[in-house]
């Protein structure tokens, strides 16, 4: 009663309370909730009770189901979908366990008409009351019912992805269950059910799925599931289509083969038989089989087609039929047992072919069915299985089949693409392409095939690529896409050799060549990187000197199965250090035939800039086809791991060195040679790691030098015992005896200024001896020992211009590296020539009787031993020999030997005086001439040596002596001075700064000017020199003073000076420029320094600035 009060509320019709209706509503809600709670509580208690009794014999699933279902229903109507879902999941688990209990096997179900259409999303398709009333709970219906209820709730919860995921799993599991009961189910019930289930699930989930509302990952997952469902559906559809004879319309592609060849045939209890009235259909199918032509692959590829069937259908079907007569035992034991029991049967069935139609047996039940009959029988059986007219329509004709097939394939491909499973998607694109191709839609087919090929090629799955690429090539050929077709042919050729027969590969090549030599509309460049690869030869790179040409040898691998002729070929070299300037193309002049595999080709290499080079791109021409390859081969198959790597470290193939001296030319001697005599001049030719084979030396002599005799140029090997890089030998080393080992010697001729080197001198240091004569017109002049005056070294310098051409094709020219800026590129060799002696003279003694002893000192100028055999002096005017008139020296110790760099003296006795009568002829002679007859013995490798042509004389005595002439100037001695100059004393008061002082000199004539050539004998030129810092001079510093020519005449020269600084300063000096100093007597000489006092204190004194 108390409770009733709570559940009631008073309603006053006349004056209702303001809150009455709200109160009523809340009460009602409360009541409903209470009621629900009570009912739920009640049901849950009941369910718990039943669950506890689960394993008791009295337990009944039907009661349990009614409770659970009622509870779930209650939850559902109050929108507690999650709870309802939970109840259904629990119910499913419980049911699955119940089904598994042995001894309580229920009927599976699925035998009613229309059961082939899945009801997994339609819970109301079968009346539930029937299931409950019968207590049948057949698995086939009930599991679908449960899933339908779950999916309904999931859809209400807006979880279509979960429906798809659970649905896919359900289909797979249910399909297994169907296969377990396949022998009681209609023919191919399982396949039909899966097709229907997948289609329903796809449609239901797709219609409830709104794109873009969920995370990308979940979206991908959803599309993946859709793709999987389509794919599953497609596989089963193809299986059924194959059974009724549409197998020939299916592409035997990897994906189809993989899907179908591992999927077992249906296993009905008995394979359906041919209905009695189907003979016309059998004939039609037979005709279809006979008309079937196996698809001929392009290029005549004869490859075993991929299987679409797990085993021969003919054999399988007949085996299943045979098992009917043999009893069920065989069915259970399987084919192995059967083949053991009936080995002959196996042989018979396995030997059957499609065209084996001979009816050998009369018994209809034992006679093996022909393939056409199997098709027809399957078609009839399927027709009775399939209740969905739409589905059956898809099997009614090839066209309908293809339409459905395309629909499913496209669905799967699209969804896989959306889920980013590109491999799955692209592969199915290939299947669409196959259908397009079949229908003549080559453009679409080519596009799709290209996608598939790009995927396989990009990832390097060659087996798969080999399957698709011929199809693409065929499309391209039909579309007249020459570039694409050629490229496909090349790609086919570059696949693994094992993938195609040699004959097929030859076919690819012949297509390429035929197309290359045909008139192409527009020449296409073709990348053959995968087919023709190249590399430099192993080992170190070719090393070339600057400006040298060479020959480059390159290894080229050809992937063509046959020889292929390349009309032209060029290869670029790329400098490793600079990108812009470094590309040089090497061209082969002739056509090259490449054998399959490894080829070595050689290319002429013109001179390259210094640097290191790697191989760049190989280009060439086959007919009208220009190809290029930029693939380096590392001596074998390409390293696949680095296949995509662009930054491939490449090995330098060529190194061109920076310009370096390749040869060194140097003079063999450093000391002087004899002038005016034929002398050998040596040129050391030292190749620096470079062959001088065929070298030519151009010789051009400078002024004052001539080559004596062009036929006697000698060349000999030069033993280089010194390690210095310049190659200039020390003379000492040569004198100590150069090694004579391997000494070669040859006489060469000079022809038009050219000398060709012998071969033996190619790689060794050699020395070239050239006879030259330095011409010196000037007579040697002696000098006085009082004032030694050496002749300049430049006088004896002569030059030889040398130009050495060498290298292969004489491309190299010798140039001094220090002279590399010189445009002439000619090396000038300096040769120093000199007289054998330098002569200096002195008067050794002036005797009282007027005799002068003249000592002539001979300095040896050459590094050779000089032997003086004779010497005589031709005196100038004014001198005569004292005793004998032959001009021979007083001491006659000839021959006199002078060692190198030493001196010797010869004494002549002469006197002043007029020459004798016989000397009249020489009166005009103003110089004395010293004549020396001498011999020389020296080594040409050291310096001066006997003149060329003389040294070969037999004996020492027979040597023709040489004569050296030197001019000497003798001066008559000056005996007394002409003028006397005296400095007159300064004032006694001393000098002060700023105080005028007069400097005075007296000049007095002591004797007459006998040889004076002055114009005015009565004048003398004077000059006063003073330091301007110390002295200010007033008056004429320079001038002529009158002085009588008479002996004893005198003048006084005075000049006014002002000392400017205090201290000891040098006084002004008087000089007489016209008179030789020897003629001036200053005895006593003027003061060296004089004392200047500081200025007297004076306020008006100013120091000059």
């Amino acid at each position, binding site marked *: 009663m108390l409770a009733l009060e709570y559940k009631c509320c008073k309603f006053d019709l006349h004056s209702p309370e303001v809150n009455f209706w709200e109160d009523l509503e809340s009460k009602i809600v409360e009541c409903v909730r209470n009621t629900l709670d009570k009912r739920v509580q009640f049901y849950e208690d009941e369910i718990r009770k039943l669950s506890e009794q689960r394993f008791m014999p009295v337990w009944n699933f039907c009661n349990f189901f009614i409770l659970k279902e009622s509870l779930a229903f209650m939850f559902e109507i109050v929108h507690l979908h999650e709870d309802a879902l939970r109840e259904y999941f629990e119910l499913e688990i419980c049911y699955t366990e119940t089904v598994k209990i042995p001894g309580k096997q229920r009927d599976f179900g699925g035998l009613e008409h229309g059961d082939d259409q899945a009801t997994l999303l339609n819970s109301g398709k079968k009346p539930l009351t029937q299931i409950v009333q019968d207590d049948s709970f057949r698995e086939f219906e009930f599991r679908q019912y449960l899933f339908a209820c779950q999916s309904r709730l999931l859809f209400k919860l807006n979880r279509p992805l979960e429906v798809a995921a659970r649905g896919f799993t359900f289909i797979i599991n249910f399909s*297994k269950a169907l296969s377990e009961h396949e022998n009681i189910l209609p023919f191919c019930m399982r396949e039909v059910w899966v097709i229907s289930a997948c289609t329903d699930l796809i449609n239901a989930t797709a219609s409830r799925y709104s794109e873009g509302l969920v995370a990308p990952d979940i979206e*991908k997952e959803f599309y993946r599931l859709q793709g999987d469902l389509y794919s599953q559906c497609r596989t089963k559809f193809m299986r059924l289509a194959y059974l009724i004879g549409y197998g020939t319309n299916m592409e035997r592609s990897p994906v189809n083969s993989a899907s179908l060849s*591992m999927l077992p045939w249906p296993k009905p209890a008995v394979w359906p038989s041919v209905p009695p009235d189907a003979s016309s259909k059998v004939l039609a199918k037979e005709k279809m089989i006979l008309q079937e032509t196996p698809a001929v692959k392009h290029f005549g590829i004869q490859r075993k087609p991929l299987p679409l069937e797990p085993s021969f259908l003919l054999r399988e079907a007949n085996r299943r039929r045979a098992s009917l007569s043999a009893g069920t035992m065989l069915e259970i034991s399987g084919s192995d047992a059967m083949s053991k029991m009936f080995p002959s049967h196996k042989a018979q069935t396995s030997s059957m072919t499609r065209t084996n139609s001979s009816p050998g047996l009369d018994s209809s039940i034992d006679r093996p069915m022909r393939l056409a009959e199997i098709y027809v029988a399957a078609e009839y059986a399927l027709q009775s299985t399939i209740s969905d007219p739409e589905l059956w329509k898809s099997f009614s004709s090839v066209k309908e089949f293809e339409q459905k097939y395309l629909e499913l394939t496209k669905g799967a491909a699209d969804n896989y693409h959306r889920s980013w499973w590109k491999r799955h998607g692209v592969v199915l694109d290939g299947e669409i392409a196959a259908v397009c191709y079949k229908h003549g839609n080559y453009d679409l087919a080519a596009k799709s095939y290209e996608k598939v090929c790009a995927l396989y090629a990009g990832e*390097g*799955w060659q087996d798969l690529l080999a399957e698709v690429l011929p199809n693409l090539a065929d499309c391209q050929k039909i579309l007249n896409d020459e570039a694409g077709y050629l490229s496909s042919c090349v790609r086919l050729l570059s696949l693994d050799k094992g993938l195609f027969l040699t004959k097929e590969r030859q076919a690819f090549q012949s297509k390429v060549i035929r197309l290359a030599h045909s008139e192409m509309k527009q020449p296409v460049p073709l990348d053959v990187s995968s087919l023709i690869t190249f590399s430099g030869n192993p080992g170190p790179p070719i090393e070339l000197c600057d400006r040298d040409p060479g020959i480059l040898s390159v290894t080229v691998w050809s992937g063509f199965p046959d020889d292929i002729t390349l009309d032209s070929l060029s290869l670029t070299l790329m400098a490793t250090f600079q990108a812009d300037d470094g590309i040089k193309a090497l061209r082969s002049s002739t056509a090259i035939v490449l054998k399959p595999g490894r080829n070595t080709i050689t290319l002429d290499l013109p001179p390259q800039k210094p640097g290191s080079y790697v191989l760049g791109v190989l280009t060439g021409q086959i007919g009208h086809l220009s190809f290029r390859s930029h693939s380096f081969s590392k001596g074998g198959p390409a390293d*696949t*791991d680095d296949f995509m790597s662009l930054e491939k470290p490449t090995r330098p193939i060529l190194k061109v060195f920076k310009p370096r001296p390749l040869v060194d030319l140097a003079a063999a001697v450093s000391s002087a040679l004899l002038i005016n005599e034929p002398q050998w001049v040596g040129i050391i030719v030292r190749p620096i790691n470079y062959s001088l084979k065929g070298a030519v030396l151009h010789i051009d002599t400078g002024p004052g030098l001539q080559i004596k005799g062009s036929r006697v140029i000698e060349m000999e090997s030069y033993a280089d015992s010194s390690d210095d890089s310049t190659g200039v030998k020390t003379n000492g080393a040569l004198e100590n005896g150069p090694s004579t080992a391997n000494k070669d010697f040859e006489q060469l001729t000079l022809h038009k200024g050219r000398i060709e080197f012998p071969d033996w001198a190619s790689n060794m240091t050699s020395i070239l001896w050239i006879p030259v004569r330095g011409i010196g017109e000037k007579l040697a002049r002696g000098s006085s020992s009082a004032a030694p005056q050496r002749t300049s070294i430049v006088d004896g310098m002569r030059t030889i211009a040398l130009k050495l051409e060498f290298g292969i094709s004489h491309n190299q020219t010798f140039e001094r590296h220090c002279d590399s800026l010189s445009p002439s590129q000619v090396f000038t060799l300096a040769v120093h020539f000199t007289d054998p002696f330098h002569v200096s003279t002195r008067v050794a003694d002036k005797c009282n009787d007027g005799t002068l002893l003249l000592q002539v000192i001979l300095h040896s100028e050459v590094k050779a031993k000089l032997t003086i055999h004779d010497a005589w002096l031709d005196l100038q005017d004014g001198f005569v020999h004292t005793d004998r008139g032959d001009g021979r020296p007083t001491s006659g110790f000839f021959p006199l030997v002078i060692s190198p760099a030493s001196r010797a003296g010869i004494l002549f006795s002469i006197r002043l005086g007029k020459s004798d009568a016989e000397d009249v002829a020489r009166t005009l002679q103003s110089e004395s001439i010293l004549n020396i007859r001498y011999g020389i013995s020296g080594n040409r490798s050291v310096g001066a040596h006997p003149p060329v042509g003389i040294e070969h004389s037999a004996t020492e005595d027979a040597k023709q002596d040489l004569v050296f002439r030197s001019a000497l100037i003798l001066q008559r001695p000056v005996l007394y001075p002409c003028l006397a100059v005296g400095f007159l004393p300064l004032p006694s008061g001393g000098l002060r700064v700023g105080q005028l002082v007069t400097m005075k000199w007296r000049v007095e004539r002591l004797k007459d000017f006998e040889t004076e050539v002055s114009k005015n004998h009565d004048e003398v030129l004077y000059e006063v020199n003073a330091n301007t810092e110390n002295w200010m001079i007033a008056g004429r510093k320079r001038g002529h003073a009158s002085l009588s020519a008479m002996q004893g005449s005198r003048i006084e020269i005075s000049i006014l000076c002002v000392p400017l600084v205090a201290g000891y300063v040098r006084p002004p000096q008087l000089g007489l420029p016209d008179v030789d100093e020897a003629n001036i007597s200053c005895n006593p000489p003027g003061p060296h320094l004089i004392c200047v006092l500081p200025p007297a204190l004076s306020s008006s004194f100013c120091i000059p600035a």
Partner: protein
Amino acid sequence: MATTACFIIVSRNCIPIYEAEVGSAPKREDAAQLHQFVLHAALDIVQDLAWTTSAMFLKAIDRFNDLVVSVYVTAGPSHMFNNDISQCLPQTG
């Protein structure tokens, strides 16, 4: 129970660099291609899965009828596929 397995090492960029078939089953002419196809398709799954797990050995990531694909993802950029083929497994799918 005649089984055969195909073992493929796949480098980065999904390029197969080593392939071997082991097992006692008679070699089918199309098997190499079949295995390549199955393993190539499985790369789609590996690429998705490799980012979601830290495990290196991914067992049975894909199933193609009775072919089971397992993969060992190395720390470096390559995968090792093991495609077990058990011909006597109950049919699936």
